[in-house]
């Protein structure tokens, strides 16, 4: 039963710097990295040592507590370095890539002949499993669960988001193969959400064995969180899995070819990026392959992902496992005199969802933004602003407060099973008191994960 849903609350953040729909093959990096930190809560158990030769698809570490989940090398080459941080936490496993990639030997998989257990085995053994995430908690899925349904969002509504129709262009067969194997994993539906207005790529519209739902409204309409909430809400004890659309195609590619070929398109966006296009890279690529010569480098912030949920990386850092976007925006590390650019200025150039700035009345103008906090952290004072951008039947501030006081019972009652940090990104953006709500929600989910699951 396909549904048509309307997201009424939310906010499309209008900023400069979206990418053109044209793509370039980025040069093959000299080094690639898989970052255990991309997988929240993962404690890796390293399988290879520095100096070992690996192929694309060779496991380099696995989950210490769920050993079947392997994390594989995206390219062939030599393990160059295992970078550790405080308390010897593993931050990056860096692989020096060969000139020509060689793949772990594998053969195409006949998906139709697989049963559920076999399908799981294929995904686990090939290193494709980490593409599947679960709600609640928003971490890599548990292979012992059977989700009540699987959600794939067919578009991204976040600021400067890459165009999924472009990412999936000519990927019809790969996408379909990915959908086919996901179908083996659940008794419920594969829900694919597309924008209500405008067409979508054939990969989406021609996909079979999916339930296509139409979603209209502002960001976060493209996030799976609000989609799940409206279509198949999660109650305590239930599990839903989600996969990013481009990752479905990577899964499908393996099934069709038997090779772990993790190449994908990454959009370079943001006001400080000059050559804003799509770049074809392999997962774990060095950001500098995309950035070099294509953006300003003076006092800027590089973000792997979008400006609401992405993670900050260094110029010589690596693109995140799940990210299809690099954003470059200016740092805002300067003092602003209160009457001119500061807190009491007229603020025609200040992006705000609050009527206390005239920006709402300026129509479709696009804004320059920087990373300044535009204030200091305070206790909650203003009420009702989170609710304007939070399309859930959940009280966001009360949920956050229940996390702050570590009250598990209240968290459960107030709906923590239905949310992920990314669902609070807009709340965090609009917050007058500058409260880091995504971080707080993550803390709450960690507690729930530990105590209740």
């Amino acid at each position, binding site marked *: 039963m396909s549904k048509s849903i309307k997201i009424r609350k939310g906010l499309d953040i209008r900023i400069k710097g979206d990418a053109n729909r044209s793509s370039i093959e980025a040069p093959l990096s000299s080094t690639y990295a898989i970052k255990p930190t991309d997988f929240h809560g993962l404690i890796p158990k390293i399988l290879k040592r520095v100096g070992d030769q690996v192929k694309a698809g060779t496991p380099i570490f696995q989950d210490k507590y769920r050993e079947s989940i392997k994390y594989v090398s995206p390219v062939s080459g030599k393990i160059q370095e295992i970078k550790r941080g405080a308390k010897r936490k593993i931050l990056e496993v860096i692989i020096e890539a060969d000139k020509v990639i060689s793949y772990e030997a594998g053969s195409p998989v006949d998906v139709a002949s697989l049963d559920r257990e076999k399908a799981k085995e294929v995904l686990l053994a090939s290193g494709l499993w980490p593409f599947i995430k679960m709600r609640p908690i928003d971490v890599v899925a548990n292979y012992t669960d059977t989700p009540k349904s699987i959600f794939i969002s067919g578009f991204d509504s976040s600021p400067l988001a890459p165009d999924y129709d472009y990412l999936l262009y000519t990927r019809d067969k790969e996408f379909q193969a990915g959908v086919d194997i996901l179908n083996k994993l659940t008794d419920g539906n594969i829900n694919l959400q597309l924008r209500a207005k405008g067409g979508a790529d054939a990969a989406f519209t021609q996909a079979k064995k999916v339930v296509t739902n139409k979603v209209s409204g502002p960001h976060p309409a493209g996030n799976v969180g609000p989609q799940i909430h409206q279509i198949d809400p999660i109650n305590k004890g239930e599990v839903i899995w989600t996969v990013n659309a481009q990752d479905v195609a990577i899964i499908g590619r393996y099934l069709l070819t038997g090779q772990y070929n993790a190449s994908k398109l990454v959009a370079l966006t943001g006001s400080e990026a000059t050559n804003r296009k799509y770049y074809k890279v392999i997962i774990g690529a060095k950001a500098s392959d995309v950035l070099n010569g294509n953006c300003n480098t003076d006092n800027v912030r590089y973000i792997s992902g979008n400006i609401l949920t992405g993670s900050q990386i260094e110029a010589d850092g690596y693109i995140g496992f799940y990210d299809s976007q690099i954003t470059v925006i200016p740092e805002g590390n300067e003092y602003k*005199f209160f009457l001119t650019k500061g807190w009491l200025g007229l603020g025609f150039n200040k992006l705000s969802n609050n009527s206390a700035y005239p920006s709402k009345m300026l129509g479709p103008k696009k804004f320059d933004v920087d990373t300044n906090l535009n204030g200091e952290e305070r206790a909650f004072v203003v009420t009702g602003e989170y609710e304007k951008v939070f399309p859930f039947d959940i009280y966001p501030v009360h949920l956050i407060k229940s996390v702050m006081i570590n009250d598990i019972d209240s968290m459960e009652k107030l709906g923590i099973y239905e949310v992920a940090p990314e669902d609070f990104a807009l709340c965090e953006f609009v917050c007058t008191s500058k409260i880091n709500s995504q971080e707080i929600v993550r803390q709450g989910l960690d507690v729930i994960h530990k105590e209740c699951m």
Partner: protein
Amino acid sequence: MKFLRKIFDNAHAKLNKSEKTKKLFPLVDSVDTLMFTPNHTTKGGAHIRDGIDLKRTMMFVIIALIPCLLFGMYNVGLQHDLANASVEWSGIDQFLFGLMKVLPLVIVSYGVGLGVEFIFAIKNGHAVQEGFLVSGMLIPLIMPIDTPLWMLAVAVVFGVVIGKEVFGGTGMNILNVALTTRAFLFFAHPTSMSGNNVWISGFKELKDSPNMLADGISGATPLGDLASFAQDQPAYSSLGGFMQDGHSFVEAMWGLYPGSIGESSVFPIMLGAIFLLLTGIASWRVMASFFAGGLVMALILNQFAGENAYMQLPAIHQLMYGGFLFGMVFMITDPVTAAQTTKGKFFYGFLAGFLGILIRVVNPAYPEGVMLAILIANVFAPLIDHMVISTNIKRRLKRVKIA
């Protein structure tokens, strides 16, 4: 602005040199962040943030209060001029007289309140939070003009410490700070806060020297006059007489009669209301439901008025007198002490408006019914939110049973 920036940077550097002076950091930091939006950048999470901050929010409320403040100054002078048979002033003289009378109240309110805030800021090691910027302006505006400064100072200390800081400071308080201050004075020093002698500057002295007091000036506020209907010697023989004597709709709109400094005139309050609603600082839900609550109560009282002239007062007039509208725009809308849920805001506002008129009319000893009603609603706000959230929780649990 570079020289100013340098001054602050130097000050910070000097303070950081020794442990003793480090404690004063919040002081300098508070002034610094007032002059400059700091250079803090986002760390993780959303990399960009909305332009709004608490300082701007609070400052906009103060801007919305300016018409009331200016009107209050003029009215203080005007009322003194009307009551004092020995002076004949122009409008500017009246305003200047009011300015000289009101300004000390504002200075004492801010000075004492911010002083207390600074002490707590140093003790707790954080910057001064912005909450008192608004409270400090609200407090003088809801005082009778002849409130002694020492009394005001004591009350402000009580309001800030007991009303706010004991709960953890800005954002944590249960009761509206400005109203806590006023309630303290109302119960601790009733003779200076109510009756007919406190609403006109210098009224007591005028009363003691019979030649100075102009004829027909009682010093009473409209609500005082209305309340007197319940007494043996009412100020007016009938409601009609009251209405004709300077209390028509238009005259009530301008509000040139005795009262607390900022509350008597509808017009400047409405200017503030429009500004707060346009900028989205105040919740229209709370304002509208407060108004509706007061209106409904006034209409109910009209139905049961009988011979009681106060209860016969047309509903709209009822709402224009006293602190009702000032409370509606500036007090009940305080987001910290109000209900926080969208639905809860409607109940909350309605409850406060409803009770405000009820207390005021049914117990004429409390013309400040609105103040008491808002404080009661403050106390009930968490309960209202609890009820609203409970229905949300039940709705979520119901979903499980169906599935």
